[in-house]
């Protein structure tokens, strides 16, 4: 089964094949030991110098980033204040800030801000969890059972080719204005992203590893658990980054289509009131928790894929 429509598998960054190309001499095999203490040793001095350079570079990169952001926001503020751009459309940074502050202090038109964030967060996380679990399980199962995947291929392709965002309306009818219609939409969006990657990952397992496991005595279940799942993990974790974006999209779009609470509703109401600052404030909040989630997923990925070789960085970067 191949995917020729909206969702296609993304190749993981560090494929297992790359693991074979990084042999180290026995002497080099020891994990990075701490650097020698700075002293008369010229190598230690050199290492310290390299480290100083690296720190300087990192500071510079961050400084330029902050500067860019400041320039952008400053320009926006000035242009909106002086009338160079129409504040009615663009809003302005100070307006967004005071809107956020207002929401934090006095709550929004449909209740305290935290309630809105919490509702959307719940929908996102539940949808994400359900979609990921279903996607991984079905992807691996279909990846292993050729007959089943051959039978189901046309159905999955058809489902995948529907613009899934439209299902939001269907779910609103089925489940009403509560949280479950948003969770379902988010889960469906997440599912397809994860499913195709898990499926592809299960199919791409090194044949030697499969043969080796079988000869060593593993039955089907053990082959799946010990070889297929770990091998597909790098594909799956790659898809999680995109999938979380889908989960937020599902939750927010679901709310736009009809809800009693949530960030999507907040944004929708601001839009209806021609309040650009409200719309942008909603976006800022969404971005903050999307970034937080991205960080958590990256941590998870590092933990799960510890066994993969890292791109060779010189030792001593970790403090």
């Amino acid at each position: 089964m191949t995917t020729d429509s909206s969702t296609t598998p993304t190749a993981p960054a560090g494929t297992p094949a790359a693991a074979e190309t990084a042999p180290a001499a026995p002497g080099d095999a020891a994990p990075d030991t701490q650097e020698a203490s700075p002293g008369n040793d010229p190598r230690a001095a050199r290492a310290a110098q390299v480290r100083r350079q690296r720190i300087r570079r990192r500071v510079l990169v961050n400084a330029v980033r902050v500067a860019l952001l400041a320039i952008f926001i400053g320009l926006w503020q000035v242009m909106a204040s002086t009338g160079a751009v129409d504040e009615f459309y663009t809003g302005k940074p100070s307006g967004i800030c005071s809107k956020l502050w207002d929401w934090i202090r006095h709550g929004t038109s449909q209740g305290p801000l935290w309630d809105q964030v919490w509702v959307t967060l719940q929908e996102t996380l539940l949808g994400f969890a359900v979609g990921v679990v279903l996607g991984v399980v079905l992807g691996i199962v279909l990846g292993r059972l050729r007959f089943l995947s051959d039978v189901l291929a046309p159905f999955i392709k058809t489902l995948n080719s529907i613009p899934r965002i439209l299902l939001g309306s269907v779910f609103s009818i089925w489940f009403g204005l509560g949280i479950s219609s948003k969770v379902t939409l988010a889960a469906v969006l997440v599912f397809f992203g994860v499913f195709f990657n898990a499926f592809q990952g299960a199919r791409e397992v090194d044949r030697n590893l499969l043969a080796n496991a079988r000869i060593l005595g593993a039955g089907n279940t053990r082959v799946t658990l010990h070889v297929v799942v770990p091998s597909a993990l790098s594909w799956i974790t790659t898809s999680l980054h995109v999938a979380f974006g889908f989960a937020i999209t599902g939750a927010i779009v679901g709310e736009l289509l009809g809800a009693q609470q949530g960030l999507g509703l907040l944004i929708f109401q601001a839009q209806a009131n021609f309040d650009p600052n409200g719309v942008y404030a909603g976006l800022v909040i969404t971005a903050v928790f999307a970034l937080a989630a991205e960080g958590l997923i990256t941590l998870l990925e590092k933990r799960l894929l510890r066994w993969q070789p890292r791109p060779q960085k010189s030792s001593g970067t970790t403090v």
Partner: protein
Amino acid sequence: MTKSFTTPQGGNHDVLRDINFSVEAGEFTAVVGPTGCGKSTTLSLISGMERPDTGEVLVDGQLVDGLTKDVGFVFQADAVFPWKTVIANVAAGPRFRGTPRKEALAEAADWLGRVGLTGFERYHPHQLSGGMRKRVALAQTMINRPRVLLMDEPFSGLDVQTRQIMSDELLSLWDVTRPSVVFVTHDLEEAISLADKVVVLTAGPATVKESFDIDLPRPRNPREIRHTAEFVKLHERIWESLRDEVQLAYRRTVSVTPEAVTPEAATAKTRD
């Protein structure tokens, strides 16, 4: 113990034709032949991973019909599990076969000692050198105490020095459990220095051309034995037999399609 088979017709292309040889219990047999002649296919047939179209494989008088627990296989490419630590890799066989965790780990530690990897238990394969990974693979296979050990050019990815050290280690491991070995290689020196018997295959479709007994004394040092007069004499005799096949196979690869020149492509082709 005897193994014998006759096998033609792998689809529309004969990989093996009427190939037939036997390996005594505890005997170390090396199979040499030109690139892509069907050596790997022969091993898959013995292991039970694939089945012959005609003929049969017998291990201990029993017809081979699928994988059995008596067979061990060391692959040409890295086949250790990259996500498992060294010790978990070695313990995998017993664990797959239902040995309790503690017991399996103790046994694995034992075997790691035998291949000189004590102290590397918690490492992941990518942190090891090619030779060390190969030793993990050996321990992983030998821990199951196979009675038939199949090896498919196991050391071909290693540099010359490491290769010779690995040959040494292989012989001493072999001495522990004394399985019957079928060792496929295209390196004639390696074959003679390790084996009791060298079987020369013809350029595909493969069949047994000649079989030579290697009556060099054991225990051997594969590195030093290469310089003895008996070794040189044997090498000459067997090379005489092998040369024609190698040349034939080479001529085919240059006159057929260009992509068949690499060994991988040639092997893949014959397998279809």
